């Protein structure tokens, strides 16, 4: 790449990943704990039982702590778009800008309005009005998440736009295809519902602590009941939407799926690696070394999950780079070399179009514009000089995916067992189970973060799938300044995290009795 410091790309990626992961520590708990407090307040309004009000107010306090510490941490990423990723920011401005603007408006008006009613309005408004405010606060937060996820889904599966070579921007031509893209819809449900799992684990764990400490046991048992039901339903739905995610990935990001599976050579009727250990000796898709040291495969399952057909063909890394296989849409896959040539042709057409416009040669400009449009789908490949650069980090994606799925199955079992013993009124005696519940809180965060690792590391090298790779998306700033801000953010966010944990622990130790 002409004059571009390779460490600049890496530091910029690291900074974005770090700030996104910190932001994602706070958001799922807002969404998940929010739902649980809504359910508890609904039970209070329905039954009139003041114990539910006490429980609601306690969880609402923790919700407030998390919300306050986490609020605006996402704005940091918008700063980074403007400074570190200016080419990307300009290139996608019309697409990205709209969802983020709507998110900001909804966040400001809806959440800000109703959150104050939620916290200040207990003795000031009717029960029904207060309940509505609580629900609308959480719905507002969820709708905010929708718009961010729509923007991210567009990066994975860019639709509804047309590239304008005069403004050098992708311009939105179909808002609904962006909002209702299958990737966007599935991503929204999978992300939000998985946040409900995290919220449930949090409530379950904290409540288990109260029972172990033999305090506020009535409150804790009620909370465990709600959390285990919500958690079990949410985890099952997360598995369902996770299947949808994998299907979307198979259809639209085949390299990501191949890397998730450590799959180099595709075939029909192919099994899913349920558990596996990758072979560190496998360094290249060109060598014939076995990619696994060990694996347990579920026969035909990958074909079924990827294409809903156990006899279908699923391409591996080698096949995707070499092309020549039939894709789910019936067309024959282009090789990397073919895509690279088309990408370079598209970029050349952009240059030729500019020259024609400057020379006021409208006929030539029209020709070059049409050539650009014809090859635009592979625009980004013009920036990638070697096929190896098309392959995301395999161990990171492979193991992240597996750990996330295994944790998902663990959560189903955990919530199921807890619900069983809770309904038998035996859970207070099961100290071993209560300790497991307590120590499962961080596992929810692990699973949640790993999902994003799969999604975002798996889409490398793309900022926008097929259209713009990271090395073309970046600004010409110094890697030194990015490094400095990386450590500034690390310090700021770590301080916020420590503050949150300290305030949360203080509130948990105080307990619900005084709320």
């Amino acid at each position, binding site marked *: 790449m002409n004059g571009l410091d390779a460490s600049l790309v890496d530091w910029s990626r690291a900074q974005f990943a770090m700030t996104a992961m910190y932001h994602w520590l706070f958001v799922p708990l807002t969404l998940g704990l929010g739902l649980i407090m809504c359910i508890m307040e609904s039970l209070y309004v329905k039954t009139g039982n003041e114990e539910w009000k006490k429980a609601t107010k306690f969880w609402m306090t923790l919700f407030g702590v998390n919300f306050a510490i986490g609020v605006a941490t996402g704005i940091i990423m918008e700063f980074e778009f403007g400074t570190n990723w200016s080419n990307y920011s300009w290139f996608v401005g019309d697409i990205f800008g709209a969802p983020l603007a709507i998110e900001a408006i909804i966040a400001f008006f809806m959440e800000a309005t109703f959150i104050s009613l939620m916290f200040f309005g207990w003795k000031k408004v009717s029960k029904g009005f207060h309940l509505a405010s609580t629900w609308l606060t959480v719905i507002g937060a969820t709708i905010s998440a929708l718009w961010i996820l729509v923007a991210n889904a567009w990066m994975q599966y860019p639709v509804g736009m047309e590239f304008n070579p005069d403004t050098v*921007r992708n311009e939105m031509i179909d808002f609904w295809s962006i909002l209702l893209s299958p990737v966007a819809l599935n991503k929204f449900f999978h992300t939000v519902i998985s946040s409900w799992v995290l919220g449930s684990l949090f409530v379950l764990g904290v409540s288990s602590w109260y029972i172990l400490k033999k305090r506020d046991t009535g409150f804790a048992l009620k909370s465990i009941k709600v959390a285990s039901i919500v958690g079990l339903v949410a985890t099952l739905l997360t598995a369902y939407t996770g299947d949808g995610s994998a299907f979307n990935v198979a259809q639209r990001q085949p390299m990501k799926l191949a890397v998730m599976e450590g799959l180099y050579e595709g075939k029909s009727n192919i099994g899913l690696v349920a558990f596996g250990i990758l072979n560190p000796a496998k360094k290249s898709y060109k060598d014939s070394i076995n990619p696994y040291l060990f694996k347990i495969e579920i026969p035909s399952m990958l074909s079924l999950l990827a294409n809903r057909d156990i006899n279908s063909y699923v391409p591996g890394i080698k096949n995707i780079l070499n092309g020549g296989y039939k894709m789910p849409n019936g067309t024959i896959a282009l090789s990397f070399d073919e895509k690279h040539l088309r990408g370079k042709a598209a970029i050349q057409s*952009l240059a030729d179009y500019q020259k024609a416009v400057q020379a006021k040669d409208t006929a030539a400009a029209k020709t070059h514009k049409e050539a650009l449009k014809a090859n635009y789908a592979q625009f980004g490949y013009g920036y990638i000089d070697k096929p190896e650069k098309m392959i995301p980090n395999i161990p990171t994606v492979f193991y992240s995916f597996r750990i996330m799925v295994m944790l998902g199955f663990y959560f189903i079992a955990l919530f199921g067992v807890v619900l069983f013993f809770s309904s038998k009124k035996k859970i207070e005696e099961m100290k071993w189970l209560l300790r497991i519940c307590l120590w499962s809180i961080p596992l929810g965060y692990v699973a949640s973060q790993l999902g994003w690792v799969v999604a975002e590391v798996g889409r490398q090298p793309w900022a926008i799938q097929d259209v713009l790779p990271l090395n073309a998306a970046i600004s010409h700033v110094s890697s030194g300044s990015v490094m400095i801000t990386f450590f500034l953010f690390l310090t700021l966010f770590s301080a916020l995290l420590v503050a949150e944990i300290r305030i949360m622990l203080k509130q948990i130790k105080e307990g619900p009795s005084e709320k």
Partner: protein
Amino acid sequence: MKSPLFINKLISFYTEGFRAMTVGKTLWFIVLLKLFIMFAVLKLFFFPNYLKTNFKDDASRANHVRQELINKTN
């Protein structure tokens, strides 16, 4: 008149709410400090908008990005 009465009630709602806060006061301090650091320090000194800072209008920004996209190819 109804409107002034409503505004008075609204102001009173918020002032009483803020006065009654316990842990909320600490949280508000953290929120305001965080926003100050983010917008008055980080954004101002470390995160200028690259295109808005270095180019005066949209035409020159578009031209810059165009040249970047053309020149970054191998």
